[in-house]
């Protein structure tokens, strides 16, 4: 993406004004696409103990028979979550939202080596790999490498960058074996999670330190993932406190260009981290965790991009008499990114978040919270400039939500709103209402209406690219993008071997970012509107004790119009970056002699705007546990094609190759 910007910039310096204009606008689009989305700056971080979002059952179908458990190791047994311990009926997820949970088992058996790969299996998620270390990830439309409508959290810490409201996926990593689950919520969860969660929230939750005791060593290598090594050690500090530390490293070989030549994007990362969990009394839980990383990536011009950073987070949760609870979370996050010639950014973010949940009488269950975040950055200009190049953005937020049982155990209404104040547009208000109908013990239906915003970022307000004949100057009056979302869903678990859930939505967007030509400069304004609608289906079927099928299907239709008076001709075309259809199916077999076999296929339909054809891809994993402590596995990815593109325009587009890696995991 950075190379594309450099190329366009060079083209901009020559040629006539009108040629310049066309190239400039496509260049700016590329730059904007590269920087991505200006998502709400004020993303609130909601601690992972969200009271009303419990995981749906589509990924938690009950086991049929004790033979599954007797094959598990002690560690696996200790991590089985028993959702209905002393009841025999199944439970249906209680959340009035389109939520899917990717469990640790799903991550392990899919062979995913990082979080973007793990996200492919959730319904409604668009995951397109652009090159070795870049992904375009979104939900319900608007996907590009600067996708800005998805809020991503790691253990409650927001990981999108306020620079453009998107996520630098190359630095969101952890030990995959220590991820407890990834919750994917599609739809505006703005009221709880804050602005920028316009199309959804991805919440990566790592395991409690008490669940990661002992030594874990894993490593391996292959054709694309050249080598990787992970070591983690967990221990009990005392009877109420546990800790773990980890170190990991990997190197990836480059991805090819369309013509087969080297893409020159080899990538390596080192990361280390720790987590401490303490429960001094049964009602209190304290967590302290942190990570630090450093990595580099090749570029075409031979100068490496360097990234480094770290974070530290503390959270205190207290259960109270009377059924309530409260929590306080604070974190500091530091990131540095140096892309030669393009720009350098150093950023530090500090966030404090408080939340209180309290049942009030028989009719109300109230949750409210306050948050403050400050993010300071310094950008060293290159071809891309930000004016000013130092910013200290502050965000204040307040949210409140009430759950009201209109008909006890049958109909529950949740109303909530978030009020935020940010440095660009002042106050923003995001209300939402949700209704859950528990039809019976095996099925539930829900509906919701929400308003969400994506607030401006430095990309819209401060970006400056100056070229003779055509310049882009940031717009200090850029407004927030707005959406009203209407959603409806149904989920069922009629037997203990089948569960399914369906969600449908219609989103009405206004004030979307557009690129206007106001001679002599280009500027970013809010003159685009759009409508999207779609259906997402997820299901888990367990026909026998040893065979599980997990599938997802997503249909999406996206439509944009420029508002009258707009001169934007290119932004409406970016509608084509979202595939109309996606499907995923994974078949998992538990064979004899402790052998597991998983085969997964995915289909993504074409992206006509970028001339990327629809593709079908298949991954397979074979694993064997010769002894309790050791697992050996072989994973093949992208089996069907030598190489295929997922995102990007010719000619500089990278493709994803067929690859294989072998891995061992040793636990003691």
């Amino acid at each position: 993406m950075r190379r594309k910007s450099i190329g366009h910039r060079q083209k901009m310096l020559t040629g006539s004004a009108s040629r310049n204009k066309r190239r400039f606008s496509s260049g700016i689009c590329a730059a904007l696409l590269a920087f991505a989305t200006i998502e709400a700056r004020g993303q609130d971080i909601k601690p992972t103990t969200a009271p009303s979002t419990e995981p749906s059952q589509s990924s938690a179908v009950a086991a049929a028979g004790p033979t599954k458990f007797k094959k598990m190791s002690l560690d696996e047994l200790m991590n089985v979550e028993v959702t209905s311990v002393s009841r025999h009926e199944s439970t249906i997820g209680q959340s009035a939202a389109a939520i899917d949970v990717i469990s640790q088992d799903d991550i392990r058996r899919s062979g995913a080596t990082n979080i973007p790969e793990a996200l492919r299996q959730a319904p409604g998620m668009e995951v397109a790999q652009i090159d070795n270390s870049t992904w375009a990830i979104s939900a319900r439309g608007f996907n590009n490498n600067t996708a800005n409508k998805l809020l991503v959290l790691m253990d409650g810490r927001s990981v999108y960058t306020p620079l453009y409201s998107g996520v630098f996926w190359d630095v969101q990593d952890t030990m995959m074996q220590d991820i407890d689950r990834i919750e994917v919520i599609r739809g505006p969860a703005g009221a709880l999670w804050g602005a920028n969660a316009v199309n959804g929230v991805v919440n990566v939750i790592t395991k409690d330190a008490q669940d990661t005791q002992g030594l874990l060593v894993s490593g391996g290598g292959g054709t694309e993932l050249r080598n990787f090594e992970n070591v983690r050690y967990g221990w009990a500090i005392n009877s109420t406190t546990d800790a773990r530390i980890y170190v990991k490293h990997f190197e990836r070989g480059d991805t090819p260009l369309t013509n087969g030549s080297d893409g020159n994007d080899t990538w390596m990362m080192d990361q280390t981290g720790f987590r401490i969990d303490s429960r001094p009394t049964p009602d209190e839980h304290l967590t302290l965790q942190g990570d630090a990383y450093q990595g580099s990536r090749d570029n075409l011009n031979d100068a490496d991009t360097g990234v480094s950073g770290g974070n530290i987070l503390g959270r205190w949760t207290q259960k109270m008499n009377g059924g309530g609870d409260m929590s306080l979370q604070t974190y500091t996050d530091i990131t540095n990114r140096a892309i030669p010639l393009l720009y350098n950014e150093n950023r530090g973010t500090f966030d404090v978040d408080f939340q209180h949940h309290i049942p009030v009488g028989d009719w109300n269950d109230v949750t409210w919270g306050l948050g403050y975040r400050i993010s300071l950055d310094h950008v060293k200009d290159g071809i891309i400039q930000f004016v000013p190049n130092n910013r200290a953005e502050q965000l204040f937020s307040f949210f409140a939500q009430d759950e009201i049982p209109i008909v006890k155990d049958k109909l529950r209404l949740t109303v909530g709103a978030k009020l935020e104040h940010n440095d660009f547009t002042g106050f923003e208000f995001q209300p939402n209402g949700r209704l859950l109908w528990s039809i019976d013990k095996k099925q539930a239906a829900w509906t919701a209406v929400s308003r969400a915003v994506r607030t401006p970022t430095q990309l819209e307000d401060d970006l400056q690219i100056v070229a003779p004949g055509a310049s882009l100057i940031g717009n200090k009056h850029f407004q927030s993008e707005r959406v009203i979302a209407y959603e409806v869903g149904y989920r069922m678990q009629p037997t203990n071997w089948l569960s399914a859930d369906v969600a449908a939505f219609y989103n009405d967007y206004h004030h979307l970012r557009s690129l206007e030509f106001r001679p002599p400069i280009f500027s970013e304004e809010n003159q685009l509107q759009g409508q999207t609608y779609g259906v997402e289906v997820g299901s888990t079927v367990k026909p026998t004790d040893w065979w599980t099928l997990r599938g997802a299907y997503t249909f999406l239709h996206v439509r944009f119009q420029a508002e009258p008076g707009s001169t934007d001709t290119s932004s409406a075309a970016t509608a084509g970056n979202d595939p109309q259809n996606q499907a995923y199916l994974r078949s998992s077999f538990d064979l004899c002699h402790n052998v597991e076999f998983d085969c997964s296929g995915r289909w993504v339909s074409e992206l006509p705007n970028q001339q990327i054809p629809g593709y079908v891809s298949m991954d397979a994993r074979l694993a064997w546990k010769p002894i309790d402590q050791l697992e050996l596995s072989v994973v093949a990815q992208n089996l069907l094609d030598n190489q295929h593109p997922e995102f990007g325009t010719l000619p500089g587009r990278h493709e994803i190759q067929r690859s294989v890696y072998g891995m061992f995991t040793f636990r003691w």
Partner: protein
Amino acid sequence: MIRAVRNFMNLPSLAKVSLVSLLSLGWILVAPSIAGAQPATTQPAPSEEYQIKAAYILNFVQYIDWPQATFSAADTPFTIGVLGDDPFGPALEQTFQDETIAGRKLVVKRSTKIEDLQSCHLLFISKSEKDHIPEILASLKDKSIVTVSELDQFAQRGGIVNFYLNNNKIRFEINANAAEKISLKIHSQLLKRAKIVNSD
């Protein structure tokens, strides 16, 4: 939707074949284990909680050494006793089926009287006996029996292993001193995953 189906039909045949063989491929690999697979049962399955505890008991037997004197011959099986109301249903037998540990099989013995279960290697004491724990443990004093239960304070009162729930996950605590006193050797793989508790 029609377009979607047409899109699928237009995929290269390799892709279509591969997708369809996703399911069939597994059958080929699975064929040898079909013979040994559990038939679908029409009786209600024992609750998941006790299936997990039965699997834990299998692990306990694997990682605990009893003194040689508790076995009369090289092939004497492990006797797993259940005292009181049995919450396991068929889960114990299903879990122990076809399992051997150190060449010994596992057999289950049930009774409501402690006198019948004096020669067990591992004894699960049901919740129904919660008011009689001191007498039960006293009658087993000095015998190398791994007493297991799921009652508050069981390990502190002299029981060897106690199940408890933490965060919806089933965990266990071990009274290591009590185990040592009756010549039971517990392997570190089990000890390090247990909450260690001392007698009151």
